[in-house]
């Protein structure tokens, strides 16, 4: 008599794969409303995740662009003689890390200020012939990291009123990015949980509706994986579709947003549209993973037949 064989074939047949896909799709259709709710939740969650990613990437980009442009403006005390000014210039030049030093006279400074005001330069008429602006050096440095130390050293040179740099705005920008990152992370975790919950509910309804079938499958010797696959696929299709929709929306929204920015704030160094394409794969993977995880949660409870 032949003994009981307890080994299965490992290779999955194409027919079986087709069967899994057919089962998954038919149950998606049966479950139309829940499927729609799941896809929408995933799409919304991933859209927000995508928006945050794009925003953070852009803010990082802006911050580092500003950072690389950083220079120190050294304001001099009034009433310094030419010799003193030259002395200060030489001292600054000798500091290691300084790459370029330009002297801006108070007259040049006023002229630049007028240029910047443009049509509103009439405001300056109130000053009469006086020029409140100090003489200054504009100092460029090799590495943004050095800016703060150099600025401190320069401000201690005798005859220097103070040395300013764009540190504050950069720090504020970074603080903002950090805050957005944390808030975004919290929101994303929350939304991911919501998506997970609704997908696992959808799958649970499917599994429940088919518990009889699952029982029979077990009695006739279907393996657990054979039973699981259609449900896993169903979850993954839900997550994947949600991700696709979120990507399409994200592309559209970002296109409109960049358009708006270029029209009004052209100097902002925004990342090109490709940035969305780059995070698309990430969103698709996250969507499918949420779907698979949602199914797994439901299946674990219902597979015990």
């Amino acid at each position, binding site marked *: *008599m032949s003994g009981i064989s*307890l080994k299965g074939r490992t290779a999955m047949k194409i027919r079986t794969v087709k069967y899994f896909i057919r089962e998954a799709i038919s149950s998606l259709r049966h479950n139309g409303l829940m499927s729609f709710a799941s896809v929408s939740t995933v799409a919304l969650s991933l859209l927000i995740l995508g928006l945050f990613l794009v925003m953070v990437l852009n803010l990082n980009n802006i911050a580092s662009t500003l950072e690389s442009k950083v220079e120190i403006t050294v304001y001099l005390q009034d009433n310094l003689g030419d010799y003193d000014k030259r002395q200060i210039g030489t001292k600054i030049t000798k500091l290691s890390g300084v790459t370029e030093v330009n002297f801006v006279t108070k007259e040049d400074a006023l002229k630049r200020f007028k240029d910047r005001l443009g049509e509103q330069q009439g405001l300056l008429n109130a000053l009469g012939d006086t020029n409140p602006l100090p003489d200054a050096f504009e100092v460029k440095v090799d590495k943004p990291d050095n800016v703060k130390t150099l600025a401190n050293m320069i401000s201690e040179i005798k005859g220097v009123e103070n040395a300013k740099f764009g540190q504050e705005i950069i720090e504020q920008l970074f603080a903002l990015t950090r805050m957005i990152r944390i808030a975004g992370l919290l929101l994303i975790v929350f939304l991911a949980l919501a998506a997970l919950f609704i997908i696992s509910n959808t799958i649970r309804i499917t599994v429940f509706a088919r518990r009889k079938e699952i029982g029979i499958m077990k009695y006739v*010797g279907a393996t657990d994986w054979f039973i699981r696959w259609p449900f896993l696929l169903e979850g993954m299709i839900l997550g994947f579709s949600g991700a696709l929709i979120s990507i399409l929306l994200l592309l559209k929204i970002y296109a409109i947003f960049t358009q708006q920015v270029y029209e009004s704030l052209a100097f902002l160094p925004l990342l090109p549209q490709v940035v969305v394409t780059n995070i698309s794969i990430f969103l698709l993977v996250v969507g499918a993973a949420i779907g698979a995880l949602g199914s797994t949660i439901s299946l674990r409870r219902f597979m015990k037949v």
Partner: protein
Amino acid sequence: MISFQGVSKVYGKGSVALSDVTVDIEKGDFIFVVGPSGAGKSTFIKLLFREILPTNGRLVINGRDIGKLTLAEVPYLRRNLGIVFQDYRLLPNKTVYDNIAFAMEVIEASRREIQRRVNHVLNLVNLSSKTDTYPNQLSGGEQQRVAIARAIVNNPQVVIADEPTGNLDPDTSWEIMKIFERINKGGTTIVMATHDKPVVDAMKKRVIAIEQGCIVRDQPKGAYGYED
């Protein structure tokens, strides 16, 4: 081929369903498992297809200790068993043919093999004319015949039946028994829990009587033995 060796089953709250049962079932046997309700018949049956595990003792099927199977091995054990329930357990949204084919699809048989086997077993249970019918269009006896066809379509070595005629009238029960007898003639071992006294008395098969979790009688050509 099936050997209970001092098998006990105690359920959660300490209720003993089977205690120290030892019995051997040979290939080709036709066995009735009888006894009052709650005596342990169902437990006996459920142990065979590893719906439940023994609390003590060993249950060996074809040289394999059922208690030591990994979860992944259980499906392959069940492919050697055909199971028939009192309530048929057919899928209402599948035709007769598809209900039977389903048992082969889930073990990934080829389409041609499925067609060949399903038609063969449909013929065996005299339902060739009902191929495209749905279960709710069939009588109880016909539904049970579909269930039997499904149980044997994968050529199991053992068919396990739990009160297969419990919901059927006497005439229909006889039809069902004839089918089981035919399957048994083909060399398939049959283990059937039943309350059907006339059937057991008339068929003169081996009878195992269980009372309060113990085997109280094991007769080669037995009778039902209870007046109920």
